[in-house]
């Protein structure tokens, strides 16, 4: 009983200290509000406002039609450039796409001589280049077909393909990026809050003070874990309700409580990792470096930014050991696809198991380190 009481009161102390540090509080608020809004509204992960130019060497009606076919919000209005400038403009990155329409294009086209329109893609603009190239090809095909038949609706093919996008019919990226933003903030903040709280106690000698009292290292570590986890969980819940659902007006299909349950499980893991790192680092700068080493891959390789399937098999399997991967999967399944517990219980199990392992590991490390240093 006293153990539980100690964990409770030590954690309450933790909450008090947190709410007194206004800079810290401000940064957490920022991470779960402005930062989420910025990500959601940035269009960083879709074809949006792509810079496109046309080197029109034909000056025909067809070439003008092609140039006009690129519409916002996907493309910025196509700029006219001269063919000689294409290389230079691509080099400085002024445009991601430059079309080159050769002289006499329309004449050759109508005469059936199959002229070639060239699409230059800056392949270093990874995500935009890939998606954009596909769009451009489709747009050009449609325009050329329209022009060839001289009518606005090409005859329907007898074999059709209806494509429906599930869960996000209009492919609005803010649905995706807002929740993924919450997840990466969760990982970053949970590790750093818990870890820094431990290092601070050590740097200020307060851990020593606790250890001469009837308080065990286990209780100290658990208090850090629950209190910092709770702060983040609260921030996640508020962010999801007010920022995502209200401000951004993003419909959530699934059960928010189920998602928060997943978040709580995940936070056990993330805060434990923070405590664990703090037992390795002696000073705050060391913790900062260690933290980068752990948190950056946890975030960037979890599938929240880039598709998991495309990673090398070895790394992909290794990332299955990271609860962040499972948490991203849970978030996508629950919030977007409305999956219930029955469909994703394995992910919960994985998060719980790995989180539990780290919890034990970090408490054990904390205890042995405390015993050494006094």
């Amino acid at each position, binding site marked *: 009983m006293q153990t539980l009481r100690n964990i409770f009161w030590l954690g309450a102390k933790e909450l008090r200290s947190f709410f007194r540090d206004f800079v*810290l509080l401000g940064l957490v608020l920022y991470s779960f509000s402005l930062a989420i809004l910025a990500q959601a509204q940035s269009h960083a992960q879709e074809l949006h406002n792509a810079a496109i130019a046309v080197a029109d060497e034909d000056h025909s009606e067809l070439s003008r039609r092609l140039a006009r076919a690129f519409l916002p919000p996907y493309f910025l209005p196509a700029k006219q450039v001269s063919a000689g400038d294409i290389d230079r403009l691509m080099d400085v990155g002024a445009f991601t796409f430059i079309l080159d329409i050769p002289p006499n294009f329309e004449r050759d*086209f109508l005469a059936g001589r199959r002229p*070639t329109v060239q699409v230059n893609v800056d392949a270093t603009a990874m995500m935009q280049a890939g998606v954009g190239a596909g769009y451009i090809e489709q747009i050009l095909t449609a325009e050329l077909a329209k022009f060839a038949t001289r009518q606005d609706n090409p005859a329907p093919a007898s074999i059709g393909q*209806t*494509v429906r996008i599930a869960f996000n019919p209009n492919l609005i990226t803010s649905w995706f990026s807002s929740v993924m933003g919450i997840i990466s903030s969760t990982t970053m903040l949970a590790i750093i809050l818990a870890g820094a709280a431990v290092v601070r106690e050590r740097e200020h000698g307060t851990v020593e003070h606790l250890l001469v009292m009837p308080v065990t290292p286990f209780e100290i570590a658990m208090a850090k874990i629950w209190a910092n986890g709770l702060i983040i969980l609260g921030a996640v819940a508020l962010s999801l309700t007010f920022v995502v659902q209200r401000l951004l007006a993003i419909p959530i299909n699934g059960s928010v409580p189920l998602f928060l349950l997943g978040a709580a499980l995940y936070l056990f893991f993330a805060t434990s990792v923070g405590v664990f790192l703090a037992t390795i680092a002696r000073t705050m700068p060391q913790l900062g470096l260690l933290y980068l080493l752990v948190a950056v891959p946890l975030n960037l390789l979890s599938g929240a930014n880039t598709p998991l399937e495309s990673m090398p098999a070895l790394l992909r399997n290794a990332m299955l050991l990271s609860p962040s991967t499972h948490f991203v999967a849970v978030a996508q399944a629950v919030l*977007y696809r409305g999956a219930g517990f029955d469909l994703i219980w394995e992910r919960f199990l994985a998060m719980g198991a790995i989180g539990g392992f780290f919890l034990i590991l970090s408490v054990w490390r904390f205890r042995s380190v405390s015993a050494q240093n006094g």
Partner: protein
Amino acid sequence: MTELPVVRLRDLRHAYGRTRALDGLSLDIPAGCMVGLVGPDGVGKSTLLALIAGSKILQDGGVEVLGGDIAKKRWRNEICLRIAYMPQGLGKHLYPDLTVEENIAFFSRLYGQSAAEGAARISGLMQDIGLAPFAGRLCRRLSGGMKQKLGLCCALIHDPDLLILDEPTTGVDPLSRRQFWELVDAMRQRSEREMSVIVATAYMEEAERFDFLIVMNEGRVLATGAPRDIMAATGAETVEDAFVALLPEGAARPKLTIPPLARDGGPPVIMARGLTKKFGDFTAVDHVDLEIARGEIFGFLGSNGCGKTTTMKMLTGLLEASRGEALLFGETAQASGVDARRRVGYMSQGFSLYSELTVRQNLDLHARLFGLEPKVARERIGALLERFGLDDFVDALAADLPLGLRQRLSLAVALVHAPDLLILDEPTSGVDPIARDEFWALLIELSRAQGVTIFLSTHFMNEAARCDRISLMDSGRILATGAPADLVAARGAANLEEVFIACLEEAGAARAPFAPVAASPAGRSKNPAFSLRRMMAYAIREAQELSRDTIRLSYAILGPALLLLLLGFGITTDVDSLAFAALDRDNSFYSRAYLSEVRGSSYFVEQPPITDSRDLIDRMKSGGVSATIEIPPGFGRDIKKGEPTEVSVWIDGAMPFRAETIHGYLSAAHQKFVSDPAIRGMEPAPPLPANIETRFRYNQSFDSIYAMVPGAIALQLALMPAILMALAIVREKELGSITNLYVTPVTRLEFLLGKQLPYIGLAFVDFFVMLLMALYIFAVPLKGGFGVLALGALAYVAASTGYGMVISAFTRTQIAALFGATILTILPATMFSGMSTPAASITGFGRFLGQIFPMTYFLPISVGAFTKGLNFDDLAGHLARLCLFFPALVGLSLLLLRKQEK
């Protein structure tokens, strides 16, 4: 004595929030003598000294120092060369990871001394002060007394006219204290100029030796004059008595009487046999035997670093003994565990409570951790608050309390659970005489009335004399144990202090006699607006610290390399290995041919077929498949008949960018099927009368590694330097060495640039490591100019460190700096700087964040030089913009950094 006063105060006022620290002080402090500043805890002594030193911003009133107004920046700049200030706290403004010599050399450079002049003065001073044998020892390994000597050495490096010492001997043992004052005296005599010294102290014996005393209380001056005059005026025999008599509450002070100890003959409460502790090959505690009876007040005396604290830590179970055993209440500290701890109250040396909690919250927390009933706790806390005079500070943050009050709080906390045994490590260091007496009255009551055993260490001889028994310790060994009076008698000494010093000198602890001859006087030059030497002082110091911290250094170099490895291979925007599943309701030649178009694609991996619509929904929901293809019944038949038919595709839209790509792949597969002559029978689709040729420039295979590796390098060089830089500056704020910026001639620009240089260097090394990795591990060739890439990287790391510098200006704790630097870097770096989408296409707040982030301008250089094969001419525009960041960010930091404390 000179006629002009060295310091002139005119109606000086200073407040912290609503608390008044100084309340209308008007005073002339005579030049050329030793001036002592005494007064109870928290009456504004430290504030006054900090104001005189120019370390704090003046709020109200006038302070003239050395004949000029300290509120004027020009005057401060001029006289900081002539002032030295040692702040409170043992070695707080020194650098623990630097050696003795490096610490002094740092200050020498700060005062603009040339290498030759500095070297001469450093070796001279070290010899004079007796630090020469320890020149290579790390400051963190010095004892308290040694640290103060080092502090003095650093303060004297520029031969100041005014030396300001804030409690320089608090927590220092009598022998070291005596040596310290001899040093100061000798230095004053030797100095060619007349050096004025202003000292705040809690030791009244010390105050007796000063030429002039200022007695302060509650922000006002009670009395000034020579100690003799003050004693005469109050009719007291000692300064301590005079001091007490001057205070309003001192008049009715009862004399402490200690009833004799009634020994009950029970088993000893503390029993140590052959207790030994070794740290490596250094023996901190060497075969210590102790036996302390119930109710006894046992004092532990000894020089700093002699093993007192280590012994106490072993008794509490904080440290494990290397050999021997320690029994508390008849049990070993380890075995008795939590239960014994309930009976022990411990107060560690140095404040170790939660400074971010209030006085009451600290007490409450401890009461709860000891499992006190709420009612009992309330009563006890109320009584303790009253007893220790903390009533008025209940809701003050512990961080805001002056040293003496913090000590009282620590003691109250140690008593909150009514322990049977108190282990107190220098409980009264820095506490004023009246509070010390009150505290002793409490100890005596606890011991005699309640039978509480008290084991304490102290540097005050009058406190030692009150103990039932004392032990003298040196170099880990106990030299003598016994009742104070017996020890004095046995030695035939006049008092305990003589016994102490005699014992130590016998044990060889006394250092060589002091003979200052060596140091040459310091030259005094004009104070330049910018001094390369002062900047290098910080650069060298930072680099030295960095090189000592091998863990930080290796993380800083290996970390980015390891991350590059992970991210380079791991982050890819190629969409492939997509899980799809089919629901083939037709199962004809045509339907299989359709599906084989998809199956044949390297982008897709087929999962077991879907059984029904329910299965389809579930598998989409759980994320098991990213796309499903449903072929309607009669698909083949309809094609043969030429009748319209429709394939239905579902794509998971949870990740929009991936959904777009899947859509593209499936459309292409569909087109291929439709235009296959074998399917269409006799009539091939009319080909489009034009070709569309898509050229992926710079990266024909459209393999993401060629963009990702240069991008990941840019990312690493944004994160690590910013975080380390922010922490480096805030660390000085948090640990106290920022004072050196406030009181020495170093300017803010020199401070910032000096601290930045090593990190720019470190980040540049990182850049080269990652460049080599890109070339040889990832086989990403450098197609363009190396020169422009290296130049860009240099400008970039200068900007990243500058970014960290700006963040540090807003934060006061390391935790917040680490936090701020991380979250304010990662988001713009990964999302808004063009790593995944060109920065120009980003909208909203993210676009703004991207535009003010240096990575946005380095990324085109990195990608351009690596993958696009560009050279200087092509990238000059980006480079120029990148170069603007450094001066802009340093300028902003300058505006935000204060040269004085608020």
